[in-house]
C-alpha cells in the first residue's frame, strides 16, 4: 500500500493529449471544453468545478495540460497548481483561466508553477493556440504580464546572459508586440520565442520542497492522524527510522514541529 505518487498511466484511454479543466463558471466551462474537444486533438478529462474535485482528479490522473481558475468557491486554485507540480512535475503543464488578469494574482500563480494565462474573453481560437503552446513546451504571454515580469526582473541584481535575454523579450512583449512579431524582429522562429517565454516563466517559479517518497508517505500518514509508532508499523520500519524521516522532512519544509510541517506541506500541495 502506497500513499505516495499515483501512477500516471491509470485510466489513459487513447494517445490524445489529456486536458483537465477546473472552473466553477458552468457556461465558460462548457464553452472551453467544447472548443478543446472540437479540435480533435485533445481528450478533455471530466471537468471539475471546485477544489476537492480537482484534488481528487490530480491524485489519480496526470493531465498533460491543467487549466485552473484561481477564484474557486472553496479556495484558491493556487493549491491545485502546486499540487500538480509536486505530483506530476514537468509532465503536467498548468495555466490559469482569468477574466480580469490582475497581474499580482497572476504572478502568484506563476510563482506556484503556472506557465501561462488564458483570458476568458479571448476568442476560442486564442485558447486553442495557447493550449497548443503549453503542450509543446512553449508559453503564451501578454503585454500586461510582461510588464509585471519586467518590473520584477529589474528589481533583481543580475546581469547574466539569461537575464539579458529575458529582459529583451519582455521589453518587446510589454511594448505590445505579439510573439509572432517578436520572432520576426529577433530573427527566430515563433516556436523558439515560445520556448524562451517558457524559460522566463520558469525564472519566476518558486522552488517546492522536494520530499523523498518515504518522507512523503510518512507525512501523509501523519496527516491522517497516525502516531509515529503506527506509521512505523504501516511502513514496515522501526519507529526511530520514522523519526529520522520526519526530522529530514521538517528541515526541507522549514518547519520546527509536526504542526508547522503539516501546514507547510499542505500549502505546498504535498498532502491534502
Amino acid at each position: 500500500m502506497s500513499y505516495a505518487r499515483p501512477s500516471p498511466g491509470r485510466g489513459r484511454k487513447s494517445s490524445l493529449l489529456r486536458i483537465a479543466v477546473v472552473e466553477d463558471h458552468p457556461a465558460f466551462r462548457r464553452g472551453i471544453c467544447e472548443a478543446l474537444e472540437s479540435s480533435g486533438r485533445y481528450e478533455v478529462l471530466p471537468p471539475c468545478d471546485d477544489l476537492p474535485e480537482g484534488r481528487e482528479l490530480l491524485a489519480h490522473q496526470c493531465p498533460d495540460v491543467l487549466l485552473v481558475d484561481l477564484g474557486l468557491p472553496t479556495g484558491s486554485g493556487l493549491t491545485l497548481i502546486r499540487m500538480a507540480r509536486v505530483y506530476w512535475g514537468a509532465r503536467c503543464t498548468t495555466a490559469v483561466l482569468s477574466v480580469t488578469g490582475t497581474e499580482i494574482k497572476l504572478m502568484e500563480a506563476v510563482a506556484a508553477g503556472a506557465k501561462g494565462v488564458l483570458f476568458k474573453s479571448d476568442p476560442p481560437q486564442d485558447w486553442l493556440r495557447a493550449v497548443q503552446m503549453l503542450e509543446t513546451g512553449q508559453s503564451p504571454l501578454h503585454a500586461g504580464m510582461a510588464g509585471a515580469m519586467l518590473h520584477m526582473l529589474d528589481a533583481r541584481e543580475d546581469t547574466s546572459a539569461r537575464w539579458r535575454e529575458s529582459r529583451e523579450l519582455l521589453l518587446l512583449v510589454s511594448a505590445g508586440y505579439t510573439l509572432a512579431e517578436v520572432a520576426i524582429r529577433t530573427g527566430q522562429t515563433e516556436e523558439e520565442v515560445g520556448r524562451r517565454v517558457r524559460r522566463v516563466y520558469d525564472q519566476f517559479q518558486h522552488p517546492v520542497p522536494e520530499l523523498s517518497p518515504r518522507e512523503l508517505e510518512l507525512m501523509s500518514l501523519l496527516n491522517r492522524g497516525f502516531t509515529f509508532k503506527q506509521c512505523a508499523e504501516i511502513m514496515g520500519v522501526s519507529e526511530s527510522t520514522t523519526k529520522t524521516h520526519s526530522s529530514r522532512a521538517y528541515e526541507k519544509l522549514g518547519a520546527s514541529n509536526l504542526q508547522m510541517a503539516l501546514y507547510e506541506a499542505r500549502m505546498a500541495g504535498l498532502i491534502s
Partner: protein
Amino acid sequence: MKPAWPVLSAEAARRTVWWAALLVALPLAVFSWWTYLQFPSRLQQLTPLKQVQVWHEELGQPVFRQDTVTGIVRTPPDWAAMRWQPAALPYVKELGASVDLPPDAPKRRVWLRLAVPEQVAGQGRLGLLGTRVMGGPWAIWVDGQLQQANLSDWRIQWNVPLRVALPLGAREVLLAVPYADPQGFAVGSLYVGPMDVVDTAWRERNFLHFEMARLMAAVAILMMVLSFQLALMRPQEPVFKLLGINGLVWSISCMQYFFDSTGQDALSVWFGSAVDSSITWTVVMAVIFAFEIEGIAVPWLRSAMVVYAAISTMLTLPMWDWQKNALIAQHYFNVAVFAVGLGVLGWHVLRRPRREGVAMFAALATQLGLGIHTLENLTNQRDPDSFFSFPMGTLVMYLVFMYVMSRRSVLAIDAAGRHEQELRARLDEQERHLAAQHALLQRLEVERRLTSQHETIMQDLHDRLGSNLTSALLQARSGVLSAQETVLLLQDLADELRHIGKSTAQDSRSLNQILGELRQRVQHRLAHGGIALEWDVDPELPPMSDRETGQHVRAMLSEAVANVVKHAGATRIRLRAWQEAGRVLIEVSDNGNGFDPATVEAGRGLPGMRQRAAALGGELAIESVAGQGTVWRLLLLSGG
C-alpha cells in the same frame, strides 16, 4: 530590573537614617561620658603650686633674636640681687595697649621661685607641668644650675604646655621667662607630681592645645578640596569659590600647628603676620558666604569688607615694624567687622527666617563669641589657663556651612527632579496629542485615498464601459445589430473590463505599457473589421511622469484608433512610436478614405483630443488628404 534592596518610602528611609545615627551616637556618648567625664583628670593627681615668689630682673635693651635670647637664657642671674615678692599663680603682665614696639624696648626677666611641697617627696622622680607660658623662652633652674630651657620651640610655646623633669631631691625650683616690657608675659598654673603622671596630664592638656586644632585644620583642608572641585565644575556659582577660599585661608592660619619657625627670626615674623591676616580673611569670607547663600544684596558692604581685609593685611606686614601689637589691634577690628556682618545677617534672618540662615547666624555668632573669648583671655595674656577656643568656632562654622551646602544641593536635586517630572508629563501629554493627531491624519489620508480611488474607478467605469454599454443598448433597441456586431460589442466590453482599475494600481506606467495595453484592447476589434495592424514601437520609450498624462495619452490613442475603425474604411493601420531629440512621437496612420480636417473635425472628437494635447504640453498634428488616408501624430516632450 528588580532592586537589590526593598525600596523604602522617603519617610521610612529618613526614620532608618535617624535610627542608625542614634545607634552609633548612643554608645559613643556613653563611652565618652565614661572615659572623659567620669575619670578624674590626671591634672588632679598633681599638686598645684598656688603661692610663688617673684623677682623681675633688669636686662637692659637687647634686641630679642635667637642668638641674643640664647645668651640671656643661659646666663645665671646675680643671685645676690634677688628680691622676692609673694605672688599667686597664674602670674601675668598683660599685653600693653601700645601698637608701636621698638626692637630695643626695655627687656626684663621674670623669676618665679617654687617650693616643692613636702607631700610629694618619696614618690620617685618628680616633674613640673605648666598649663601655658607666654613671653620669651622659659628656663628652669634648680640649685643654681640651669636644668632645662625652651630654646627650640619658644615661638609656639604659648600653645605647648610646659613639662620638665626635676632632679631627685630638688627642694626649690626657679622658673625664668624673659620679656619685653610693653609686651608683658603670662605664666599659667603650675603643678608638681610624679613624672609619669606629669607626662599623661601633659598629653591631656596638649590634646586641647594642639591636637584638636590640627584635626580642625584637616576638616578645613577637606572642605577646601571639595569646594574647589565643585567650583571648577560649576564656576558660575560663587558660593563654592567663597567656601574654597575660606578653607584655604584658614588652612594657612592652621599652619602654626604644623610648622615651628623658632630659630628663623625673619621667617617667624612674616609667618606670624600671614597667620593673623588669614584670620581676617576667614572672617570676611565667612560673612560674604552667608550673604551669598541668603541672597543678601549688600554689594557696598561686601566690597568694604574685602577692602578692609586687604588694607589690614597690608598694614600688618612686618615691614612697618609694628610687630605683634598691630596684629592684636587687627583682631579687634576683625571683631568689629564681624559684628557688623553678623548684624546685617541677623536683621535679614529676622525678617526672612530660613533654616539655613538661622543655622549660619548661630554658627557665626558662636564663632564671634569664641573669637572674643580667645582674644580677651589668651591673646592679651589675661588668663593663660584658658582654652584656645577660636578653632572650635571655625569647626562649628564649617560644619554648618557644609550642612547648608548639602541641603542646598539636595533641594536643587529635588527641584530638578520635580522639574523633570513636570517636563516628562508635558512631553507625554504632547506625545499623546501628536499621536492622536497623527491617527486622525492617517484616517483622513486613508479616507482621501479611498475616495480618490473610488472616484477613479467610477470614472473608468463610466468612461470605458458606460459609453460602450449605452451605445450597445441603443443599437440593440433599434434592432440594427447583427449577431456579428453584438459579439463585437460585447468583446469590446469584455476587453475593456480587463483593464479597468489598473491605472490606479500602477501609478506610473511606461508609455510602452500603455501602448501594449492599447493593442490588447483593440486587436480583436481590428481583426474583426479586417484591418491589419502594423506595430512599430520602440520598446524602450521613457516612463510617464504621472497618471494623468498616461490617461490622456490612452484616451487620445483610443479615440484615434476608433476613428479609423469607424470612419476611415481602411484595410491597414500602422502605429509608430519612437524617440527623437528628447521628444516622443506617436503616429497612427491608415490607408483609408481620409477627410478634410477643416470640415469634419468637430464630429470626430478632435476638439477633445486637442484639449488633451494642450493639457500635456504636447502637439497634435492631423494630416489627411481625401482618398489617401490619414496621419495622426502626437508629439510629447520626453518625460513630460
